Structure formats: structure tokens, C-alpha cells
């Protein structure tokens, strides 16, 4: 017979597992050593917050930042063509909304869309003055519309969304650059591209154009043909063995000589060529990682079906390999975005270059701390935002888990 236990006899849950105090005891004051560590770290943290806060509010003079926001964001890109940049932003909003609606079917996603887009675009608010808030709101509206559309018709919209996402980056290049001398979408020469716009474009250029080269190099490295393999390995290892800055210098100083006399190419393109050469080698290694992750059975199955070498690669192996490396590519894009800051050393006016230019202005002498803190924050928000977003997307899509 079992005796009924009276409620009095039931022990309360152990204190260390409940409540804030319990959590603190477990995570902060577990032992004497832990307690000391906590106090030291806590004191350091408090001091840090106080010092930085005090500097931001009391000491810093933000005129060097607030006066020049347009320059930081888009350099000398003509104001009359701002609508193109907005158009791209709207499209991005819609695409993110669609992607979210189609691929992430949970409602919390709306919250994320609403949160993330303004954070990324908050900087743009400054660029066009106060009147730009309707633009920002419109981006959010488009994102929400996209979200609900995507949720409603996931099947129908999946393919157009895929295609648009793939085409988005080339589209950015086309729209920013324009074509024709006059009128609608007139050409904006690259020397007017600057600031964050140029930094992002260089990274986009780099990743988009290095992709085909990277895939070819990766295939070459995997190839059984000795000559192809040697060339690919040589290229990859040489490029990965030298600093990007030497490639950029080579692009700026030597590229004009490599081309026949009479052909001159502009400096942004020269920097881009160097960045593409650089990115292709790293891209190749990433893609190779993807290729190696494909189980041998896939190759054998393709052989068994009687597919030729090319068919096997294009239809069986590459699609799977590329899918597996998507997260790595996002990482590479972030790295490339940070690396574009080196073009400032060859005189381009990217975000860092324009910051240095602004510091040369007599009105802002000695404002290095403010200016560099500001651009570091921009770089940080973008890099961290992208890596955080891609991590969440990865989890939600289950990419790389197959």
C-alpha cells in the first residue's frame, strides 16, 4: 500500500534553480573565485559604460559627423539621382518581406522585418534630411505587403522571388551606374560614387563577379587534369598568400601598363578588378569546401545514371555544393565589405576615404575620435546585422544541415 504523501512533506524546489537570486548565485557567485571575477568584470563594465557614455554625451563634438552625413553615405553621388538609391531600397524591402513570408512561416518574422530594416536603413534617414521618413516608412510598408503576399501564395511567388534575389545584386550595379549620357537613368561616373555606397558596391561587385571565377577555380582544383589543377592551385595559393593591399596597389599602378596603350580604365574599376581577383581565390576555397561535403554516393549515383562529367557537375554536384556554402558566402561577403576599406589607401573615397577627407577640412581638425567611432559603428552595424541575419536565416531554412 502506498501512503499518501501530505503536501507538507513535498520539498520546495532547490533555491539555486529559481528566481533571479538563484540565477545570480549559479551564474555569477558560484565560488569565491567566481565572485571576485564577477566584481572585477562588473566594475570594468560599469567604468566602460560610464566612460563611453560620458564621452558621447558631454565631451564629443559631433559636428564633423552631422554636417557631412550625405558625404558619408553616398559621397558625391548627385542628389538628383537619389531616387535610384531609394528604388533599390524599396525593392530590397519588398524582397526581404517576400523571402520572410515564403520561407519563414512564423508570425514573429513580421516583427523582425520591422525591426531590422529600419536599423539597417536608419543611416539613410540622415542622408536626405527629415523629409526622408516617408521613404523609410514606405520600405516597411512594402516589406509587410511582401510578407503577407509571400505567406498567402508561397508556391506561386517562390520562383519569382528566387530569381529577383539572384538578380538583385547585378541590378544594383546597373541602376546605380545608369546608362546613356543624358536624361532618365543617366550615367553617374564612378568618381562620384563614394562613402558607404561605394563600400557596399565594391563588396557587391567583388562577390558577384568573383562567383563564376571562384566556381571555375574550385572545379579546376578538384579536377583530375594535372595542368588545370596546377594552374588553379597556383592562382589560389598565390593570391591567398599576398596581402590585399599589394593587389590593390598592383591594380592601381600596374594594371594600366598591362593593357595595350590607349585603353584606360577608371580607378574604381581597377580597384574592383583587384578585389575580384582577391575574392575569387577565397571563393574557390569556399566552394571547394562545399564540393568536398557532397557524399561520394552522389557522384556514383550520377555515374550510374550515365550522366557525363559536365552533366554530373552542373545538375547534381554544384547545386548541392552551392547550397551548402551559402552561409560561408555570407561570411565572405561580410569580410569583403570590411576589406573594401583598404581602397582608401589607394585614394578612393569609400567610407573610410571620405572620413579621412572630411578630417582634412579645417573646421573638423582634431575630430578623429568622433569620425572614426562613427564609421566604425556603421561598419559594425552592417557586418553584425548581416551575420546575425544570416545565422537566423540559416537556422530557419536549415541550410547546411542536409
Amino acid at each position, binding site marked *: 500500500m502506498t501512503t499518501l504523501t501530505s503536501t507538507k512533506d513535498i520539498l520546495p524546489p532547490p533555491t539555486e534553480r529559481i528566481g533571479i537570486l538563484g540565477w545570480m548565485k549559479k551564474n555569477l557567485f558560484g565560488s569565491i573565485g567566481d565572485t571576485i571575477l564577477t566584481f572585477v568584470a562588473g566594475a570594468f563594465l560599469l567604468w566602460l559604460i560610464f566612460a563611453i557614455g560620458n564621452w558621447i554625451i558631454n565631451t564629443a563634438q559631433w559636428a564633423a559627423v552631422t554636417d557631412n552625413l550625405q558625404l558619408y553615405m553616398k559621397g558625391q553621388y548627385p542628389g538628383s539621382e537619389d531616387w535610384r538609391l531609394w528604388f533599390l531600397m524599396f525593392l530590397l524591402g519588398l524582397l526581404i518581406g517576400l523571402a520572410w513570408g515564403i520561407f519563414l512561416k512564423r508570425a514573429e518574422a513580421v516583427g523582425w522585418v520591422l525591426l531590422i530594416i529600419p536599423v539597417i536603413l536608419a543611416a539613410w534617414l540622415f542622408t536626405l534630411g527629415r523629409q526622408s521618413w516617408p521613404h523609410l516608412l514606405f520600405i516597411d510598408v512594402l516589406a509587410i505587403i511582401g510578407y503577407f503576399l509571400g505567406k498567402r501564395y508561397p508556391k506561386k511567388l517562390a*520562383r519569382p522571388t528566387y530569381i529577383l534575389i*539572384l538578380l538583385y545584386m547585378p541590378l544594383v550595379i546597373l541602376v546605380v551606374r545608369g546608362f546613356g549620357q543624358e536624361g532618365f537613368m543617366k550615367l553617374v561616373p564612378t568618381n562620384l560614387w563614394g562613402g558607404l555606397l561605394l563600400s557596399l558596391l565594391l563588396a557587391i561587385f567583388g562577390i558577384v563577379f568573383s562567383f563564376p571565377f571562384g566556381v571555375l577555380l574550385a572545379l579546376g582544383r578538384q579536377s583530375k587534369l594535372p595542368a588545370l589543377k596546377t594552374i588553379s592551385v597556383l592562382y589560389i595559393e598565390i593570391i591567398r598568400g599576398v596581402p590585399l593591399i599589394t593587389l590593390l596597389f598592383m591594380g592601381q599602378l600596374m594594371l594600366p601598363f598591362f593593357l595595350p596603350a*590607349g585603353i584606360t580604365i577608371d*580607378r574604381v574599376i581597377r580597384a574592383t578588378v583587384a578585389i575580384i581577383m582577391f575574392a575569387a581565390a577565397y571563393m574557390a576555397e569556399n566552394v571547394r569546401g562545399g564540393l568536398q561535403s557532397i557524399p561520394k554516393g552522389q557522384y556514383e549515383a550520377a555515374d550510374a545514371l550515365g550522366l557525363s562529367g559536365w552533366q554530373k557537375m552542373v545538375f547534381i554536384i554544384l547545386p548541392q555544393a552551392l547550397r551548402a556554402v551559402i552561409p560561408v558566402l555570407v561570411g565572405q561577403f561580410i569580410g569583403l565589405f570590411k576589406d573594401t576599406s583598404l581602397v582608401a589607401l589607394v585614394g578612393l573615397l569609400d567610407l573610410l576615404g571620405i572620413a579621412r577627407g572630411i578630417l582634412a*577640412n579645417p573646421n573638423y581638425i582634431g575630430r578623429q575620435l568622433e569620425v572614426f567611432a562613427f564609421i566604425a559603428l556603421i561598419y559594425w552595424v552592417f557586418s553584425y546585422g548581416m551575420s546575425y541575419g544570416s545565422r537566423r536565416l540559416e537556422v530557419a531554412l536549415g541550410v547546411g544541415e542536409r
Partner: protein
Amino acid sequence: MSRKLLVVLLVVLLAALALAACGGAKETAAPTEAAAATTAPTATSEQTAAQPTEKPAQQEGEGTLATVKARGKIICGVNQAVPGFGFLQPDGSFAGFDIDYCKALSSAVFGSPDKVEYRPLNAKQRFTALQAGEIDVLIRNTTWTLTRDTELGANFAPTTFYDGQGIMVRKDSGIKTLADLEGASICVSSGTTTELNLADQMASRGINYTPVVFETADETTGAYLDGRCDAYTTDKSGLVARQSMFPHPEDHMILDETLSKEPLGPVVRHGDDQWFDIVKWMVFATFQAEESGVTSQNVDEMKNAEDPNIRKLLGTEGDMGAKLGLDNDWAYNIIKQVGNYAEIYNRNLGPDTVFNLPRGMNSSWKDGGLLYSPPFR
């Protein structure tokens, strides 16, 4: 995804890439095509410029001028960070003494000061940019030296600004002469003649010092202001310009000694004499205008002046423009739109600016200076 869709996607993506790539090449192709159209199919404009011995560049339509005209703008290599001479303004435009000379050149060639594309270059890139044909003219406080004139493939137009290297120190440092700099650290920008002059002068006087070398002039002055160095050296005009913008200009002083001669002026590539002539006479026109008393204010009246020299300068008489391959009112346009030398100087460096730099050697020869234009005839 189905196989078909994948293929379609790939094709579209590649097409887009190709489009973008073509777009990228278009701009550069245009001027070359235009230039090539007037010449033999293989010889393009830059080639003639780069290989003077094989093909003389004097023939109509082959030189830099033709390229520039076909392009519709001049590409001017400039400084973006020397206040007073060339710097970036908050609205993204360039301003300064050197910039005004780019504008003057554009006025001479196109009749409008705005047909210029400014290429900010640092000290290290400037000659390679010029050699490679990336820019048409370099107007970026560049010192005329024998090596640069010969080995670096450059041709120097008349000096627009006579300068000399000086040294700035803090007043409370007790440094009065070069000899006091024994054991000092001296801030200097890398890749400049300044860097070499400093090494030469200190070596010849047997003074030990530590050079602290930075890439840009801003970093260099910043380091000096922070107290990283005892002294800061660059051209005296640069020192004055910088000093005027320091938070406490009165705390600093410039030593009397001059370390070097620094004649600064526009530079063009070796081998295109017509273009060289245009740049040369563009500069002389500003000198001559000051000498003759022609300013942007009175240039319209002066067009009908009695003085034959002025009439030739402004194109009322003779065909000076045609001889250069330009319109006859080329000098009129320069003076009307940019001004004479005194106007350019005063606008950027004169008494109404923060620099208030005395003209000194940079006065017309009539006032005891070095600016002297050969006759316009």
C-alpha cells in the same frame, strides 16, 4: 528546383553579368573610339602620347586635346587635402588654388569651367597616374625637378607658385635654428621631395634626427599637433596654411631657414607638345592678364581696349587660339570665368582668406616677383 529553371536562371544571371560588364567598359571605350576614328585604326590617342618617338603628336586630332574634346571633359589630377590649394568641401565639390587652374584649363578648352573631372591623388600615385594616361594634367602642388622632368616622363608647365621647404616648431620648444633640432623627431609626409630634402639637409649639416613618416598631410599635421614630433616640415606655403587653421596658431612658429626650392606647377605627360603648349599658355594667360590689368570684372570692356597686347590676349586680334588648337577667345574665357593670377591667388590664399599669405616671390615681375609671361604675339 527543376533542371530547366536552373538553366534559365544561370543564363539570366550570366546575361545580367555580361550587361553589367559591358556597361563598365562603355565609358572607357567611347573616347578611344572617337580618337581612333580620325587616325589609323591601330594607333589610338594614348599610344601617341606614350610613344613620342614613333609618331609625332602634332598632327591634328591625335593628341590629348582630341581625346579631351571627344570625352567632353578634362581629367585633372588634384589634391583633396591641402587647404587653400586643393580640398574637398562639405558639399562634395573641390576648391583651391590648384583647382582654379583646372577650371582655367577647362575654360580655355571648352569655354566653361565645369568640364573637369577631379581625380584626387596622393603623392605616391600622381606620376603613375600621369604616365598611364589616367589623367590629362596633374595640378597638385608638384615640385619641378630634373628627375621628374626626365625619368618620370613628365613635362612641367610654368611654375604657378614658388615655394620653399620650411620647418615649423612650437614656440615654447626653444628651437630657433636647424641646429637646435639635434635629437628631435620631425614629422614629414612620405613620398615627397620634402622627405628627401630633409634627409639631405640634415645629413649635410650632421644633425641627428628621427623622421616620423605618414601617408597623408593630415595625418602628419595631426601627429605634430598631438605632440608626436618636435617639428613639422613641408613647403612654407603649406606650413602657413596649416598654421592658420590650428586651434592656437600663435603657439607655433616657422623657422627662417629654407631647406629647398619648390617650384610648383601643372604637369603633363611627355610627348604631346600641343597639349603641353595649351597648359603652358593657359598659365601665362593668367600672368599676362594680371600684368595688363585685365580682371574678370573688366574683361568685357578690355576686349575693345586699344592696347594690342590685350587685344591679342583676348582674341580680338590675331589668331592665337587657332595656333594652340583652341577657340580664339580661350584666354577671354579663362579670365572671365576664373580670373587673372591675382584674383585666383587672392580668392584662395590672399588677405581675405584665413591664410593671408603674402605674395612674396609670387608677384608679377613688375612688382618685383618672379611671374613673367612671354609675349602674346
